[in-house]
């Protein structure tokens, strides 16, 4: 089983540090969801893990071998990055046909049959310049490259951005089918968490250049609760627990808690317990009031 590991990754642009010593291990045969707010460092992290950008400090290895400028390691990785308007990503200046031709030439595991199938499915206009495509169609180009690359570790940066709800549904279905068939590892960064939550086997939450948590989605949801009720009752019920995102309205209060091993919500308090969705939990953990604190 392959393992892609980033150790002590720091990224600085001038004096601005955007990644602060991130360490992360990705195992093969999983679908990871990389979630985080805008500017949290998701794309930077993905681009460093795939050696598209150098880390200021730290190393990335695939089964112990450095990934940076290592063709043997790089052939197992594919980072389908979000297309940017002209000037940023030069891929936008190319026609779809040309871009996919380059992908088919340079990605060693390229599956032309799959690419053709996806092109037909998405109704891709091959002669169109990428910059002139709608945002959704641009996302589809990156999805085609990612899926047809057949890379062992495939990274998708905001693949659902710009896709309508039907196309998103289609994408996640195809992703799951491909995963079931091949057991490839997918790392999907997204803002649209609700729809993707069922797909992610593990979730990696990035906030302000740090990995806040990396955990199996199911176990994370199992240990998270939203507790609401009378302020005094909520405070008493959550005493000693990790509390996030406290909301107060008059004498009512709501708070999200993450239980650590051995902890439970004490009984005997008049509070409402709810299981938050992954999206609600994400907001609780990364929102402005999302600072963790131990209930007193």
């Amino acid at each position: 089983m392959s393992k892609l590991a980033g150790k002590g990754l720091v990224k600085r642009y001038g004096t601005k540090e955007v990644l602060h010593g991130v360490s992360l291990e990705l195992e093969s045969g999983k679908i990871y969801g990389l979630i985080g707010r805008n500017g949290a460092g998701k794309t930077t992290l993905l681009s460093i893990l795939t050696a598209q950008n150098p880390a200021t400090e730290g190393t990335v290895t695939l089964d112990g071998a450095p990934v940076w400028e290592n063709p043997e390691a790089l052939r197992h990785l594919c980072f389908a990055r979000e297309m940017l308007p002209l000037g940023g990503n030069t891929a936008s200046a190319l026609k779809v046909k040309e871009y996919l031709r380059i992908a088919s030439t340079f990605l060693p595991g390229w599956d032309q049959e799959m690419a053709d199938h996806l092109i037909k499915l998405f109704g891709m206009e091959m002669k169109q310049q990428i910059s002139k495509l709608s945002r959704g169609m641009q996302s589809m180009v990156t999805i085609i490259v990612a899926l047809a690359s057949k890379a062992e570790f495939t990274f998708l940066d905001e693949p659902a951005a710009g896709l309508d709800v039907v196309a998103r549904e289609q994408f996640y279905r195809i992703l799951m089918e491909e995963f079931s068939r091949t057991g490839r590892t997918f790392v999907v960064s997204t803002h649209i968490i609700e729809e993707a939550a069922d797909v992610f086997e593990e979730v990696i939450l990035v906030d302000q250049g740090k990995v806040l948590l990396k955990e199996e989605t199911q176990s994370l949801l199992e240990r998270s609760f939203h507790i609401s009720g009378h302020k005094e009752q909520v405070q008493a019920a959550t005493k000693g627990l990790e509390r996030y995102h406290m909301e107060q309205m008059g004498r009512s209060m709501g708070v999200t808690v993450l239980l650590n091993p051995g902890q439970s919500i004490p009984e005997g308090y008049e509070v409402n317990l709810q299981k938050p969705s992954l999206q609600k939990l994400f907001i609780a953990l990364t929102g402005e009031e999302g600072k963790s604190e131990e209930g007193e």
Partner: protein
Amino acid sequence: MMRVLKRNVIFWGKNVLLNLGYSLVGTLLLIIFIGTGNNRMHQNFLSFMVPMFPYYLFMVGFFVNTIMGQSNFRVYFRVLLSMGITRREATAGFLGSLAASNLGIMLLAWLIWALVPGELSGKGLQMFSLLSGVLFVTAGVIAICGTVVMRWGKIGSIVTGIFYMVLGGGWGFLLSYAIEKGLNEGFLIWTADISQNICRRVLAVGLGGFLLCGVFAAYTLRKTEVR
């Protein structure tokens, strides 16, 4: 190794063939354009045009390589990195394509001159090293300019833009001067005096310069970011 070589030959080979195609078409158009006002060409079209073709091919090749080389580097370098190839491979592929374009032009020119003997062809063969050297110097400049754009972004684009403007202006001035003085004959008389020794030195300088520019490109781009 073979896999890496094969994919680069496939990818860059297409660009090289395109460059050669553009150069040939451009040369044909130029020679027809210039030939319409030349008496010698009217008198003996084929025997004059064919040996003159390589001279113009070198000149047009210089422009095509400059424009296409610069554009290819800007567009493809980051795209290739995003496909998971190393910076070394991308740089080597780009430099290789420039060299291959030059070699293609040189081969075509040499073949024409060798197969169509005559005074003009003979002079062409004498100057072959000189013209090839200039072509490689140009390729080196393209590599440097492409690298500057990749490494320093907008500032690099402005700097190389100014450079090309000055180069274009200078070339335009020289060309109009040469036409005024009689391009074909004047050029040939001037070059006839250049010894083979100097021609070979120019070729050596061109090749050496190109290699040095390649080293500069590889070093400067070793940590290029993909955005």
